[in-house]
């Protein structure tokens, strides 16, 4: 017995029919599963330096959801939620890393090479996360696009499917969002 796919599927169906309770129950499961998959990958692939979030989210989806009974809407809900969970995992990770860098605790990572390589993105992850809060107030969908494109690495088409809009719309949102992030994250701004 592992994470019963039917449970998640059922909760997704409930979510589609407007039961907000389902969201609160699903989020922890999705979050847990993402971390679990990541942990398993870490043990399996010692020689790799990084794990791609896209692959993690897809694997979590396959493990958690019964593909025969899930609707299009349920799929969208799942990936929307997974994006949020993934963002949080990456941000938590980056926060821990920059905390260690500031010397508040001895670094856990001993491999200096991968630690150094990871430093630059972790600053960016935190900055994007923060900037996204502002963007979400201007345009919630645009913020969602960033979450899916940047934090999960979904393609334009995948993002369009999850959000239920056309790829052209995602492309436009994404072009502006990137320009906006670029400006928000540049030092003189």
């Amino acid at each position: 017995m592992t994470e019963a796919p039917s449970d998640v599927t059922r909760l997704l169906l409930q979510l589609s029919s407007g039961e907000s309770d389902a969201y609160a129950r699903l989020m922890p499961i999705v979050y847990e599963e993402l971390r679990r998959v990541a942990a398993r990958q870490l043990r399996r692939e010692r020689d790799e330096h990084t794990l791609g979030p896209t692959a993690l989210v897809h694997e979590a989806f396959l493990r958690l959801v019964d593909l025969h009974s899930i609707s299009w809407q349920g799929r969208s809900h799942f990936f929307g939620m997974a994006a949020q969970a993934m963002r949080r995992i990456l941000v938590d990770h980056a926060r821990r890393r920059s905390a260690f860098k500031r010397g508040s605790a001895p670094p856990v990572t001993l491999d200096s090479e991968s630690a150094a390589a990871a430093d630059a993105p972790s600053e960016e992850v935190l900055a994007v996360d923060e900037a996204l809060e502002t963007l979400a107030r201007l345009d919630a969908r645009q913020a969602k696009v960033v979450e899916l494109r940047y934090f999960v690495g979904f393609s334009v088409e995948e993002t369009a499917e999850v959000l239920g809009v056309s790829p052209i719309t995602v492309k436009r949102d994404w072009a502006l969002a990137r320009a906006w992030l670029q400006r928000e994250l540049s030092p003189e701004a």
Partner: protein
Amino acid sequence: MMPIDAERWPLVKELFGEIAELPAGERAARLMAVDDIEVRAEVAALLRAGDAVNDRFERAPALPVDSVAAEEDAPGMLAAGLRVGPYRIVREIGRGGMGVVFEARRDDAQFEKRVALKAMLPGLVSGEVVRRFGQERQILAHLEHHNIAALLDAGVTEFNQPYFILEYVEGEPISRYCASRRVPVRDRLQLMRQVCDAVQYAHEQLVVHRDLKPGNIFVTSDGTVKLLDFGIAKMMQPIDGAAASHTRTGLAPMTEAYASPEQLAGGHVSTASDIYSLGVVLFELLAGRRPFDAGDGFFPARSADAEPPAPSRVVTDAAAVTSDAGDARRLRRALDGELDSIVLMALRPEPDRRYHSAQQLSEDIGRYLAGRPVLAQPDTLRYRLRKFTRRNRFATAAAALAVVALMGGTVVSVIQARAARAERDRALREALRTHAVTQFFQQVFAAARPQRKGVNVTVVQAIDAAIPGIDSSFTDQPDLQAAIKLTLGETLTRMYLYDRARPLLEDAYRTRQRLDGGRVTRDAADIIYDLAQIENEIGKPARAESLYRVSLAMLGALPDRDSVVVFEALANIAEAEMSQGRLAQAESLYGAVAGGIARWKPRDEQARAIAVGNHATALSQLGRFVEAEPLHREAVRLFEHSRGPNDLQVAAALQPLAGNLVYQRKFDDALVQARRAYDLNLHALGPDNPATLGAERTVTAALVDGGRCAEAMPLVRGMVALRGRVLHESDPTLGVAYTQLGQCTAAGGDLAGGERILREAVAMRAAALGADHWAVHVTRSLLGEVIARRRRVGDAEPLLLDSYAGLLRTLEPHHIRVLEARDRLATLYRMTGREAEANALAK
């Protein structure tokens, strides 16, 4: 320059999309055509940034694979005397399979702070565990709840050993706390609600405890629950997948007796697992033992799908002795029924059939405590009636239902109550009818589900849509139409949708009257009663009262008159009389209700307490303090006995008793009772709660009237200080406080100051209550007394005379306030040598 807001963002978006497509040479011209200068600047800046961004942000950040630290045993074993960061270890206070807990002190600054330091046993610390620790502490650091021991700090020692610094909780495990103090069942349930609140909060923060058990649920000496080790179980767990085997080797931190079936099976752990553990803890608190025996460490004692027994079946004598029940038989009876159902619902083997959240469990316990039907149990008529009369309808308004979520359940319970009644009356016809009614509602709720993507229909909308259909659907079955309207009307009443309920109920009544040829039926009486309830709820006591009287007459005319419902109706009429100021009528009705309940339901102590308490309050308001006092005391005693000595109902009953004693000039006793009410309220509700403030005012009154102005002054000044901030100018409380301030100022020798303040108090109270209110006359009489003491007899006499006359007009002639005013006037006469007039007054 104003930043771009959400309002103008669509414009920015549109322009950016359009201009970005243009060749570089044409952009400037197009930009200049933008009128809004800020939008223009924003778009220009974004276009520049867009050119510079290249492929930045195009690649998702990867999760770096940390090389895992060498899995050697850390050499550093923590022990007393050692320092960890700014903390000095004082002593070891506990040790488990995976970790060890110390008492420690932070003694860097001026103050010393006691904390608990929890560290993993060094041999178990792998690189993976350290990794996970770093992630988890971020989550735990955000867990801030007064029922959760706070995570103050966390770190890794120089030997790579993770540790947590937690709030030091002075208390004992909930099971021991309850047993050693013989905590009554109701208070155990209240404690459990605190536990649920904390767990719910953590679940909302995505933190699952995973190891809830009495050893992690502490209660401090003041009765506050503190949950320990939230989320720590997971961090201290070996890498996932191995959990099942570790359970059996006793290495895993999870405690088997409290673990859910899915945890035992090594399956997915979710918030539902915590609900299960809460169920085991509740089971143990009620029955004195756990639903399953603990395993021996190697073999689990139960299979994953084992069904627990009902708590009432397995109560132990020890549990009975250490609770308020006395013996096992009584405890069994107390648990049998709803409490069994609540516990068993939390303990269902299938995670998705348990309570969906800790909050839901807590609410169901709350419903039980409030005497309302619980979710966990199917409704029967007997059950519903039992609840009905136990409900405290005179207390503050019942907590609002989670309307839409409960809608389905409410309809079902209304239908089932009707079905049960039908068995008694006209079994077959009614049953068929009920079936049709049920079907109708199923259709309504099917409509409440989204029909198309993106279209959500609320339950209320679905009902509104269904109402016209009732008349067109069952044209040849008017009694069915009436039944549906009655059911729907009662349902909507329970949802507080009175405007929608009333026309349905009235319609149902008219149809029934036509069908029954004007004969009195139970349905008709019920409808009138429902309509009376509505009028009562919307603040129309006069209309409510007349409807109650009609329903009472109808109920009385029925062959199977139900005494319980009759008392309900009587009590409601009394309440309506009371709120219309007809105290004498209310008093006699309350007296009848109290007598009736004592005779018909002698064992229902809460119903008795409520009835006796209301009767006592009516008597006190009539000024019949001597008669009222023993009844007030009886209400206190009944609440203490049925709900425990620290229940808020006890405080609610103590307060009018204290007020009564003040009027009887038994100040010392009044002070004792008022202080007890104050302490109970303060502890449970905090200092700013109206109930706490009310009790504080009673304490103040007992002090001021008892002549203990020195002690009262700080309280009075505190109340006066609330003027304009917490208390509105017209708040009657303020007038009371100013009166007391004036009294005490004068008593302290400052007669001029006292006079000035009392004049202000008179004005305030007249503004708040009307010029001819007895309380205004009391204040005027007090003012007259101060003026008399300033030797301005000419000013004082008319004031004392007029206020005395006013009191005679507004209160019973032997009311203590009347007598006090008379004595003040008599004192003035004596002061001026008019003994004859003084003596005439005394007669």
